[in-house]
């Protein structure tokens, strides 16, 4: 199938053109996919600047390895495979930046209603917990939760069975919740044991 029902050319057809030397078609693929890639990479790295560099690296790799595109699978799965490799190569040479700073526990000075403030703190701590997860577990959660990838697509990307994806996801979410609860306990302990830690405004 070369076009979608709305008449737009499919990713696979565009990639075929890139492979055959029409490099300008890469611009269309970039426009279609760079946001999704950026979102994946910024959630994985916790650093927007690094995510931008990696997105660029991914598209350069698409050019470099365009001859290896066989047109047999989905373009986006191939693209994510390249993105995973680019990220792994990047962090092989350097330690990841501290993804979340302590700002998570010091929300904005702008006054917030009590419930909203508590919710904001919880979300910030959950984000912190996500960054504390081992990379492979974090990746699984990001792919399943934010990319909305079907289990079959994740299994294809990771090269495992669908059942394995389910089991690993179960473990990953359990571990995420445990870390989150520990962070919450630690924060409430700090609050109750600090003197005058929250001045009234």
């Amino acid at each position, binding site marked *: 199938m070369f076009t979608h029902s709305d008449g737009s050319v499919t990713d696979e057809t565009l990639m075929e053109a890139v492979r055959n*030397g*029409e*490099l*300008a078609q*890469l*611009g269309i693929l*970039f*426009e279609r996919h*760079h*946001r999704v890639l*950026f*979102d994946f990479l*910024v*959630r994985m790295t916790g650093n*927007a600047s690094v*995510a*931008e*560099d990696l*997105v*660029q*690296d991914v*598209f*350069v*790799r698409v*050019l*470099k390895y365009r001859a290896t595109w066989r047109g047999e699978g989905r373009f986006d799965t191939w693209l994510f495979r390249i993105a995973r490799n680019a990220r792994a*190569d990047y962090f*092989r*040479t350097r330690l990841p930046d501290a993804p979340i700073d302590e700002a998570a526990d010091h929300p904005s000075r702008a006054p917030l209603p009590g419930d909203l403030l508590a*919710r904001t703190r*919880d*979300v910030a701590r*959950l*984000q912190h917990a*996500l960054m504390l997860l081992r990379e492979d577990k974090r990746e699984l*959660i990001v792919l*399943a*939760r*934010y*990319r*909305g*990838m079907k*289990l079959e697509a994740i299994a294809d990307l990771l090269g495992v069975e669908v*059942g394995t994806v*389910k*089991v690993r*996801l*179960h473990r990953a*979410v*359990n571990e*995420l*919740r445990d870390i*989150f609860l520990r962070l919450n306990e630690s924060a409430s302990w700090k609050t109750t044991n600090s003197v005058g830690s929250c001045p009234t405004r």
Partner: protein
Amino acid sequence: MENDKLSRLLPDEVDRREVEGLDATWRMLGDIETPGPDSDRMRARLDAVLDAIEHAAPPTSPRWFGRRHIEAGRFSPLQGLATAAILLVGIAIGRFVVPNTIGSANSSSEIATMRSEMRELREMVSLSLMQQQSASDRLKGVTWTGQLDRPSGEVIAALLDALMHDPNVNVRLATIDALERFESREDVRRAAIAAVDRQMSPLVQIALIDFLVKTNERQSAPMLRRLAQDPQVNGAVRSRAAWGLQQLG
């Protein structure tokens, strides 16, 4: 596009109450916001790479990406400034020096002096771009060295330094292309051999192996053999090293 329902993604045998407990965490994950990308800047960077690819390699050997059917790139402000400076020097030569010196005994030596100054200016611009913080500017700097008639040792040293130390993979790749002009120099070939081991990017390692094969650098054989046999080395690099060994005989 999000998977809101965790229950569909877990093994069937997981207890329903446990799923409900985890589901609260799963739903809260949906509230984590991320910054959006700076799409314009990212597109400009991609265009700069495409532009660099278009102009980096000599016309007879478009090794890096093959056919150059590429849309026009965008220029960085620094490059625009450098282009303007060179253009002004060129105009100055044409308008003031040449007419005034035609027929005079010193005309050819003055023109030669101006040309030399222009060459120095081009070199200076290339070297300056290669020192910039922005990777796309450094990429431009590497590309500009391809336009120098007779680059000095300083330019070659800067290219070798970029090959060894530039943090950006694209700059290092472009540097390998730029160094092809100097493949007859032993110090360049030696540096290429040394660089293979130092590179962490398989992409750059493969490009260097290609360079060494192209230059028929037989002294690289022991290093290629070691890479080909090292199970710790990236699979693609390993097979490229084995291929390189075959090519070198």
